[in-house]
């Protein structure tokens, strides 16, 4: 995939998946995938804050809620592809792996990484989400009406 044909939606999808992945899980999948490429930093990992916002009544005018820790970095592979990592939290290694996978997804290794790293992360995220929704569903109230015995 070249920079010009890069599908933005697909890239948003994997960047988001990498950012939300449990850092230890991404680490083990990435190490298993092997062949960590050489790279140079464009921006070494940096921890900062992002201000979160809500809306009045959920839908109205925005207001500032409070910050969230975020770690970001940017790197360039020896072959020239640039990868960006923006992840929640303060884990610099997580941001670095996210940026490496982002860069590698622009190379000939994209299909391989999709299968070995992204697909398992996606499946596990779905299981986690579904399991939580299933637990919530079990706490849904089923109202029933008592028949009062009148004609």
């Amino acid at each position: 995939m070249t920079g010009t044909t890069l599908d933005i939606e697909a890239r948003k999808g994997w960047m988001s998946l990498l950012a939300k992945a449990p850092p230890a899980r991404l680490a083990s999948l990435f190490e298993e995938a092997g062949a960590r490429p050489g790279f140079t930093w464009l921006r070494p990992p940096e921890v900062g804050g992002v201000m979160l916002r809500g809306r009045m009544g959920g839908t109205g005018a925005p207001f500032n809620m409070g910050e969230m820790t975020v770690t970001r970095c940017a790197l360039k592979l020896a072959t020239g592809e640039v990868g960006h990592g923006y992840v929640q939290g303060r884990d610099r290694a997580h941001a670095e792996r996210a940026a490496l996978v982002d860069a590698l997804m622009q190379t000939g290794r994209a299909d391989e990484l999709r299968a070995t790293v992204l697909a398992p992360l996606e499946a596990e995220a779905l299981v986690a989400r579904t399991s939580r929704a299933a637990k919530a569903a079990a706490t849904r109230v089923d109202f029933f009406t008592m028949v009062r015995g009148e004609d």
Partner: protein
Amino acid sequence: MYVAVKGGERAIDNAHAWLAEERRGDPGVGELTVPQIREQLSLAVNRVMAEGSLYDPDLAALAIKQARGDMIEAIFLIRAYRTTLPRIGHAKPVDTGAMACDRRISATFKDVPGGQVLGPTFDYTHRLIDFALAAEGEAPRSEQADPLPGTMPRVTEYLNLDGLIQPEAPSDDTPPDMTRQPMEFPAGRSLRLQALTRGDEGFVLGMAYSTQRGYAKNHPFVGELRIGTVAVEIDIPELGFAVEIGEVVLTECETVNQFTGSKTEPAQFTRGYGLVFGQSERKAISMALVDRALRWAELGEDNLGAPAQDEEFVLSHADNIQATGFLEHIKLPHYVDFQSELELVRRLRAEAQQAGTSAESGGTAPQSVEAAE
């Protein structure tokens, strides 16, 4: 005269060393780990994140450990850390309508679409101490059912369809940020909501309770309370598009208040809004009540002089770090200040005594009373 006093370094070092030992407690008892606090004291972690105004569960858990469980001290640590962070940017406003709900209840409509989902709640427990928790046992397991749909419809939208509730005007204005500009009054609703969501839970609860009890009467229904996960999306400037870079758990409360109408508005329901980091429902409900009470002017209601209607009073006293900073500073050395007060009192007493003596011999002594004020 200003007198610099040195000394105390050794005492301070030793006090801190003893603090560390006391923090650890009996070494025969296993040491708490940060993940244990994060996982098993998660509501304490949520409170520290909400009032510390920084969403980072691991950091909040560490702060609780360092503070020996003193919540305000832990919040102080988080606030101090927060100030060291460069601001990377701001997220798009979270879409709570798309929340993956763990809990979602309405006190206004029994058969609300999506249903009443209780979630992991303390409600309906008997509040009896569970001695079984004192013994180690197997991890409990929850029940599961067919998963809930991805999103839940918003209860106030149903009232909105009929025009029965005051609508929220959509806007994409940049809200003011109290962490960047000093607070000014009148503050406006967006600044009030920022101050309330990071305000002290006890203070906001007390203010909300006062309105329920009748100080500017405000006894709403909880139209909807939802707790769950929302995505955080930020614009990545170097890429020119937005990415969901994380998820946070939030509690949202929408209250529905009666409003009999004003000269310009028909009778309709009005809203109070609460949105807080983590599973923090007492705080979210309190925030919604206080938000509503503070909206008296825009809704054309009377100012009854109630504390919860007083924006300056509420916002100036909601922050527990500001409050404790000012409160606790009085325990620090004030030797010189006090010395001068001591001298003043001694002088006034001496003068009064002298005047008393001369009063017995026919004089008057009112000036000593004035001087004491």
